[in-house]
């Protein structure tokens, strides 16, 4: 005898218990401390902060632990918390030219004022699994301290008027994508906000496609810099700017060839990427996709997925994508029932039509 399925509430409660147990794992192994995650999984923390749109290492570490290391779940946790936070104000634009640089490389000039600075990078690690614990060698002091101010490589080209000039003062006040819906066409500030929150894997794939002929980017890594930048606010009641702390950022400026068009002379153009913490892959991908999305403004042929702003911006967000892909596991039996009876009608009709046509192999009457 059929009994209507009941007990959803109990099933959820049991599932949560199982989840808690699975997350904790073997209790003989000590639980991860947030400080361990923050200090030893810092790149994961950076990604969660970046795509979670919240610079808080402690909360990002908490989210990673709670999500058992599932980064997309951790990003979702952080976003759902962030959305409830009241807005006290907006910071001044971050001045990345004044970054206290810890890493800075350029693919465009052999040497640059201030020098190439590798900093902490996986680039030259040779990727051999370190089966034995490697003793930590003390960092040798540098021969000379890094210069306090490092000019941005693109500013050097700017002096020669070879790269497009973007006057920051001329930008309209950006909209806040976390408070207002995305509408099309989206301006560059809005697109960059979307890309900044976008899934690293999605952006990486999109960026890669631009290098393989799906958009004509011709990029050079003009400069990638990572380090600390001061955060400044200017409260109305004070009337003067105050520094409230500093955050780690990775900035990438791509230089792209441009033959001129739409009233713009031949010159190099820019693609821009910015990421919280050490997020070089993300910042580089973002810069490539940003440049590809500028095709309309620069009157370039637009035929590739990475140039289609509706396509890119509507599908970049991992929280949206993950939710909707996975919602398919929710019950759909009402709609399925509707489709089932429609299909039965269609199938019956098909069989009847086939019967009427002698010689039809679908008829089945001869069988």
């Amino acid at each position, binding site marked *: 005898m059929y009994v209507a399925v009941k007990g959803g509430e109990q099933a959820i409660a049991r599932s949560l218990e199982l989840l808690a147990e699975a997350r904790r794992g073997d209790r003989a192994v000590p639980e991860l401390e947030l400080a361990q995650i923050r200090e030893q999984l810092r790149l994961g923390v950076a990604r969660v902060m970046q795509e979670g749109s919240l610079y808080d290492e402690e909360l990002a570490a908490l989210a990673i632990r709670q999500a058992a290391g599932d980064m997309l779940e951790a990003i979702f946790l952080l976003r759902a918390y962030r959305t409830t936070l009241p807005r006290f104000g907006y910071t001044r634009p971050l001045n990345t030219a004044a970054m206290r640089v810890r890493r800075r490389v350029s693919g465009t000039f052999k040497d640059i004022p201030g020098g190439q600075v590798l900093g902490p990078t996986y680039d030259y690690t040779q990727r051999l699994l370190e089966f034995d614990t490697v003793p930590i060698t003390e960092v040798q002091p540098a021969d000379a301290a890094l210069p306090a101010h490092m000019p941005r490589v693109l500013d050097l080209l700017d002096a020669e008027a070879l790269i497009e000039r973007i006057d920051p003062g001329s930008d309209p006040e950006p909209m806040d994508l976390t408070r207002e819906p995305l509408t099309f066409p989206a301006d560059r500030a809005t697109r960059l906000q979307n890309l900044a929150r976008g899934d690293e894997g999605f952006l990486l794939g999109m960026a890669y496609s631009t290098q393989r002929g799906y958009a004509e980017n011709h990029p050079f890594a003009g400069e990638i810099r990572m380090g600390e930048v001061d955060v400044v606010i200017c409260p109305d009641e004070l009337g003067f700017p105050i520094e409230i702390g500093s955050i780690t950022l990775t900035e990438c400026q791509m230089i792209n060839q441009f033959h001129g068009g739409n009233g713009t002379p031949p010159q190099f153009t820019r693609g821009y990427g910015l990421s919280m913490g050490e997020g070089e892959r993300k910042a580089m991908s973002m810069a490539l996709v940003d440049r590809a999305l500028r095709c309309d403004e620069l009157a370039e042929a637009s035929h590739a997925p990475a140039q289609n702003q509706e396509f890119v911006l509507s599908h970049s967000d991992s929280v949206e994508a993950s939710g909707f892909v996975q*919602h398919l596991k929710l019950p759909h039996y009402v709609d399925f029932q509707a489709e089932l009876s429609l299909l039965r009608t269609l199938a019956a009709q098909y069989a009847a039509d086939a019967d009427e046509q002698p010689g039809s192999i679908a008829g089945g009457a001869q069988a």
Partner: protein
Amino acid sequence: MTPRYNFAFLDEDTKRMLRRALLKAVAIPGYQVPFGSREMPLPYGWGTGGIQVTAALLGPDDVLKVIDQGADDTTNAVNIRRFFSRVAGIATTEHTTDATLIQTRHRIPETSLREDQILIFQVPEPEPLRTLEPREAETRTLHALADYGLMHVKLYEDIAQYGHIATSYDYPVLVDGRFLTSPSPIPKFDNPKLDRSPALMLFGAGREKRLYAIPPYTSVESLAFDDHPFELQRWDHQCALCGSGDSYLDEVVVDDHGARMFVCSDTDYCSGRRVEAQA
């Protein structure tokens, strides 16, 4: 209640934004109002639009019913109900007649709604033209021009190919004679309940960041042709539990040999009928 969050989870600024958008939605029946959808603690695609609408409406005196596929006891419905009991401490019910607010996914209750009730739909894809035209910039223009030729062609092609319209759920409607609107993926069986309903109906699409509304007593016409009128789905069966012959039925596989039985999708309606029959 979870004290670290505001009543009904959302902060007051967000509720005001939602409330302004909802009022515009009611003022322009069937039109999709863009809104600053927030990340909710449930995943996009799992009812975040409906949840935000409910959170913007909810007050301490409300009695909330949540259904998924017509049933109060499906896990996602239970989870959403649980969420609001936790963040708003409000009363919940499984009885359609006792509810002031009903949040639903994929069904409209069989029991007729009253003027003092509000039905809130969870909507995965608010744009009825989306599968025919993926670009939002284009579909907005088509709505601006009330140019719904694409949809008529699609339905006509169905007729040419199959002899009738092959859309069984999320069947497009024209609201107040102006905006082509998605009724959300309800079976077309439920479409007539949208027309001139005494209850206000609100639709929330969280991931797509759109809200829309069908005010009470508003004309809602399911698209059709003169020679191919809108037709309701019918069953040769009755509900195996309550005997209803006019409700929407779920098909249930009951043994390894594929034997089937049919039962009401609306669990409250079904159990109400059974209680009545016993009395």
